[in-house]
């Protein structure tokens, strides 16, 4: 009899969860809002960090949470921004558009006015209309889809990473002009980042008319074996592989190419310019080219950001850490310069005020792309990425 009751109670509890959950949430919200309404610039400045923080893409989203926390901690130690303590509010979207809209409405409902995110271009595209409507300034460390800034649809959007078109052009230009290769196989991972890069690169190569695209194919990410596509590259007679995607696939392809005795040039994108790539590909990483934002070896902010992460979390930072660090700095600096979180003032500050970041001294152009992020090509030499151009 007892068990019956427990089941019933459980059932009722679950059924009531919605109501209770909503009620509880609501109360918290009003609590959170109340002090803000009384004195708008009183206590804290919330910095939303949205992106994939769980699920299989979590490794691209979690580093930006760490970056934001570190920047916030540093500023708070100096007395905060405009006298407000910075608080980081992570918001998971698993890189899924529908969850991104949930995350965005949640941030908007919490009256957050500055957001770092989202990580994936797709999720960003889904969330931006919501932020735009609520006049929230959004800055992504990693969404590279060209149309996000170039279409002019989202005046509230900024980014600290260069977009597909530039990256693709840079990689294609490097391959044709510097490496002087004639037959290029363009491979991508079917994702919006990788394919966007690959398509831009393909277009640039075709427009350049110096080299030919002999193969354009997508591989299935997460696969254990890419030998078929490698044989195809070989059969096409390519003398260079241009890969759009992330480092796990890149390292598998490079390793397997080398196993098959193929030693042609491998040029890739920012998703591969990551130390994890060198670790996973090991000796096979040697000689691989990757484009990425220029980080001068003597960039003090970069060194400091790296050291802080090592100290705080005891590990090397992950993907897009520098960009996220830069975004956090830029956003908080803009709020400080603007003197408030007023949308127009913050946007104006972002467009006018330079700031030293791990990715260089930057400000933003009218479309939202960072000025001062110069693009370079790196090569792995002795287990390190070294600037070649």
């Amino acid at each position, binding site marked *: 009899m007892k*068990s019956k009751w427990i089941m019933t109670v459980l*059932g009722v509890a*679950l059924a009531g*969860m919605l109501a209770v959950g909503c009620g509880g949430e609501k109360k918290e919200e009003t609590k959170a809002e109340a002090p803000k309404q009384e004195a708008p610039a009183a206590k804290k400045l919330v910095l939303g960090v949205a992106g994939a923080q769980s699920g299989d893409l979590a490794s691209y989203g979690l580093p930006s949470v760490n970056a934001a926390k570190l920047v916030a901690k540093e500023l708070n130690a100096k007395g905060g921004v405009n006298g407000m303590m910075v608080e980081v509010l992570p918001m998971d979207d698993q890189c899924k*558009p529908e969850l991104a809209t949930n995350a965005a409405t949640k941030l908007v409902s919490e009256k957050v006015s500055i957001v770092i995110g989202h990580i994936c271009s797709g999720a960003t595209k*889904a969330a931006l209309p919501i932020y735009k409507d609520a006049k929230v300034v959004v800055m992504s460390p990693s969404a590279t889809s060209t149309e996000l800034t170039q279409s002019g649809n989202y005046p509230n959007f900024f980014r600290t990473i260069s977009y597909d078109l530039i990256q693709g052009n840079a990689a294609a230009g490097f391959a044709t002009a510097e490496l002087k290769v004639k037959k290029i196989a363009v491979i991508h991972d079917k994702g919006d980042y990788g394919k966007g890069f690959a398509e831009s690169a393909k277009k640039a190569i075709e427009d350049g008319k110096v080299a030919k695209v002999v193969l354009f194919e997508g591989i299935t990410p997460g696969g254990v074996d890419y030998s078929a596509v490698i044989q195809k590259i070989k059969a096409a007679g390519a003398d260079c592989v241009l890969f759009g995607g992330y480092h796990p696939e890149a390292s598998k392809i490079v390793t397997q190419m080398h196993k098959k005795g193929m030693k042609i040039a491998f040029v890739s994108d920012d998703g591969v310019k990551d130390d994890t790539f060198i670790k996973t590909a*090991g000796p096979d990483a040697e000689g691989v080219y990757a484009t990425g934002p220029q980080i001068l070896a003597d960039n003090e902010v970069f060194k400091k950001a790296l050291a802080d992460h090592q100290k705080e979390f005891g590990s090397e930072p992950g993907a897009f850490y520098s960009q996220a660090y830069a975004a956090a700095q830029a956003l908080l600096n803009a709020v400080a310069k603007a003197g408030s979180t007023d949308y127009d003032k913050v946007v104006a500050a972002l467009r006018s005020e330079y700031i030293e970041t791990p990715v260089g001294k930057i400000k933003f152009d009218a479309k939202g792309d960072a000025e001062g992020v110069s693009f370079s090509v790196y090569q792995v030499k002795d287990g390190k990425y070294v600037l070649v151009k």
Partner: protein
Amino acid sequence: MVAANIIKHLKGALIASIWLAFLTLPIMVIRVDTVEKTVTWRWMHLAYMAVGSFVLAFIWNIFLERRDRGQAKKALETVERVSALSQFLSDPRFARPLMAFGFLVAAAFPWFFSMYQTNILVSALIYVVLGLGLNITVGLAGLLDLGYVAFYAVGAYTYALLNYHFHLGFWAVLPMGAVMGAFFGILLGFPVLRLRGDYLAIVTLGFGQIIRLVLENWSAFSFGPSGISNIDRPGLFGITYSVEQATTYMYYIMLALVVLTIFVTARLKDSRIGRAWLALREDEIACQAMGIDNTRAKLMAFALGATLASLMGVVFAAKTTFINPASFTFMESAMILAIVVLGGMGSVLGVILGAFMLMLLPEYLRAFSEYRMLIFGATMVLIMVFRPQGLVRAKRKVYKINTEAAG
């Protein structure tokens, strides 16, 4: 005796916690870096794990024993008992006012809660309809469909593409989406309906993947992985409105669609067609031997489920204003299936509860940030273990017989 029992459970919990501590030892404690050749030991984690699992195992054992005792008791009784909850819910005296109250709360919701709450509730409502649709295929007709999300994608892309190329509005595409869903349901249904059980499951899974892969790769048609953005929200007599108002509007559209779907499925469940589906689920051979055209019944279930999914796809595209193939992965199909099974196969109320749970739980677990999916997974296991037939058990209609006419 109670004390002895508690000691027994404590002992059990101790053993379980030692076992779990042993089990999780390497993964919780050791972190290696094979490149730098360093090893980090984190012994504190082990202590947390041991204490945590001790408490959890203790509670687990007690509840499991209760459950089993309850089941054993039930096995002895020939007449099935109905839980107090479902008895309460099925009693028209309580059910009617409760439903009216529920509807009132639902109708007033956006006026009292924030846009975020409304927004996630719209998501949950979309999944209610998806769950009810899949419930027809899996819960009623017993066809395990692991590629259900394909039809969702069909609807979403139908709207997105028609909107992009021909600027067709939401209301114009909604019925077209339904037709497309039914069409694809029948198209994909035909070759696979000969298969049974898990073979059907893997083939539907395959079809689901195929549709997603085609959307991903056929860029000229679907814009590939970068997706389609700036899809129009539903029109409202040409009035422009803010995102917040759009959310409210969307909410009412969804509420209406949910009510419609509940109405349709409830009616179907106790109709000639619904009974045929149920018979099909229970015993295919007997079902056909009793004069039911299995192929027809299966196709109908498949097509109807697909229609609802496709409708929801249209709504989804209009709600998020952006779609790409990443929204239509296998995991999504698995989630919808989980809604159906967790809620209670074949039960409309159960599916609604299941959808609310699985869609709202991750949102309300946001406070746990990185632990939320861990808790979510654990909750799924727990509910299944403690309520294997789902939150609400499906019940068959009790017919009142007009004995005079029959006699």
